Structure formats: C-alpha cells, structure tokens
C-alpha cells in the first residue's frame, strides 16, 4: 500500500516538477530507474510469497541502484560505458522477467 502510494506520488511529482537533470547524472538515471524497478518487482514477489520485509526491500533497493550505477560508472571509466550499461540492463531485465513470471504464476496459478 505504502509502495503504491509512494509510486503515485513520485510519478505526479515528476510530471509536475519536471526538473533538469544534472549532466553528470544523465547516463546513470535510466540504469538507476531500471535497478529500482527490479527491486520493486522483487519486493512484490516476496510480498506474494509472504516473505516481504521492509528492511530487505530498502537494502535491496539501495544495493541494486548503487551497484548498477557503480557498474556503469566503472564502464564509463574504462571506456565501455554503453556496453556495460547494456549488460546491466540485460541482467536486470532478466531478473525483472523472472520476477514477473513468478508473480504471474502466483496470481494465475499456472
């Protein structure tokens, strides 16, 4: 409930505020969003598994975002920023897919 409320509030704030992103943050923001999405879907899965824990969610959220950002940062430092960000996106995408399929199986029992 709190998660859904927070999501709605954040989207509305993003629509109405429309801030300018600092240039330094620009390559990392999409990765951060995808990583946070992965954390959110993992939390949804664990919620349905009845093993949801606030603390785990918070930690996984931050660790996901920070790890993804650091990976892309490292890639930028090494000159393979776009490739590494693609890799991160692929891995997170796979995780998101598996989470979604787990949710689907839970909801539709099949």
């Amino acid at each position, binding site marked *: 409930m709190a*998660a859904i409320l927070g999501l*709605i509030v954040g989207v509305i*704030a993003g629509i109405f505020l429309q801030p300018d992103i600092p240039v330094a943050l620009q390559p990392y923001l999409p990765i951060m969003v995808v990583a946070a999405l992965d954390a959110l879907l993992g939390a949804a899965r664990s919620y349905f*598994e009845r093993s949801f824990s606030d603390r785990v969610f918070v930690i996984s959220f931050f660790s996901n975002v920070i790890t993804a950002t650091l990976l892309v940062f490292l890639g930028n430092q090494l000159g393979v920023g776009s490739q590494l960000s693609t890799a991160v996106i692929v891995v997170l995408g796979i995780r998101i897919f598996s989470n979604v399929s787990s949710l689907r*199986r839970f909801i539709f029992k099949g």
Partner: protein
Amino acid sequence: MPWIKKLHTDAGDEPVRIPPKAKGRIHGGGDDTTTGSFPVVRRKPGHVLDARFSRVKVLTSLLVAFLTALLGFGYMVQVNNTKSSYEGLSEEELVRLLDETSTQVDKLEERKSQLSQQLSSIKSSADKQQEAARIAQQNEQSSGILAGHLPAKGKGVTITIDESGDRIDAATMFTVIEELRNAGAEVIACNDVRVVTSTYVKDTKQGIDLDGSKLHSPYEFNAIGDPDALQNAVQIAGGVGSRIKVQFHASVSVQQSNSVKIDQIRLPQHYQYAQTVE
C-alpha cells in the same frame, strides 16, 4: 462422537483424550497459497502490538513509500529527459537528424546571403538616391536658370533697340533672339519677358507679341553670356543689328556689362501631355 463415548464406556476411569488440533494452517481453505512455484511460507507469528513497534512499522512504511516515490520520480524525469535529448536515438535517426539539421543550416545560410544581398542593394540604392538627390539639387539651379524659374546674373550685354520709324516685325525680333542664342547666351530677357525655349514671337496689330505680352519700343534685351560674342552676334557686319538699322531705321546699341541682372522669371509649366520616362 460415537468412539469417544465408546471409549468412555469401555474404560470408564480413563480420561477422554481428544485428538490435538492440527498445528499450523489448514490447507484447502479460502486462504490457500499453494501454487507449485513458491514454497509456502507460513505467516509469521503476529507481533505484539506495542507502541514502539507500530511506530517502527509506520517509519518503514514511510521509507518504502519514499523509495517508491523516488523510483516514480526518477522514471518520470527520465521519460521527460528522453523526449528532449538525443541519447536514446538510434544511429539512423541520428544520421537523419544530422542530415536534416545540415540541410536546414544550408537553407538558413542561403537565406542569410539573400538577405544580406538585399540589405547591401538597399544600402547602395539609398546611397544612389542620396547621390541622385545631391545631383538633382545641383541641377536644380542650372535647370531653373535654363527653364527660367530662377533669376540670374552674370557677365553679358544689354541691347537697346529704339525704333523711330517703322515697326520692327516679329521675324527680325526672332532673329535677334536666335543670334543671341547662337552666340551662347545662357539667359535672355526682353523687357518684362524671360525668353526660354518655348518663347514665341508674333506680329499683331498693336505690335509685337512676345509670349503673350505686348512689346513696346524701346526694346531692351538683356543677355548673359560671353559679352564679346554676344556683341559680335548683334553688331557683326551684315548681321541682324545692321539689318535693323537699315531696314527699320532703328537705333541699336549694345552695352557690355559685368553684372547683367535678369529678374524676370517664368513660372513652372505644368505639362498636360508630356510625361517623364522612368
């Protein structure tokens, strides 16, 4: 429960043993969570709801809400950013954009050169107009003098013809004017009339009609030009001066002067049919 009763009846002193209830959750009810894919996790034993714990729970809910809000916010910001930046575009799109942009740049350059050409032509024409205005101003005086709009003064001669007997005819008058013109007279006036290109002379019963005004003796011609040439033009042997003397018995005197002043002017003529060629 018949078997309990039976037990009871079988062993009267034995206490009745009720089978213990199954621990945990009863499966098959409405709250069944078995899906085959998730291990069924038992609900955690309910926490004791004291004040401290509920405060922590509210705090963590707020934290979760904050994090998801952060996610939603970041998502929307990125969506807005993607709309306005070229980062997410493919190579083809970027090439197309670059092409379009360079085409636009070319067009704008072309337009710019056109406009600057126009500007320079306008500037030069403005200069030309200024120049033309200056020349026109310069010409205005000479033309005005030539056309008789302006009074003039300068070196020239004054010719006085005093008829004593016969009336001098228009043809002779006209010859006098023509001779003066031939001799290079720039401005000519006769009595009250400024002689210009359109001046006519004709005979009438009352006398000579010069441009619509009657001439009476003595006729006084003022002419601006080279004094010697003008004097010669009239007084040359066998010229118009001697003819007037012989034919009409009139006296002709020519006086050179350094400052002949001609005040007679001719008002500007309004042309009815003639128009200037642009």
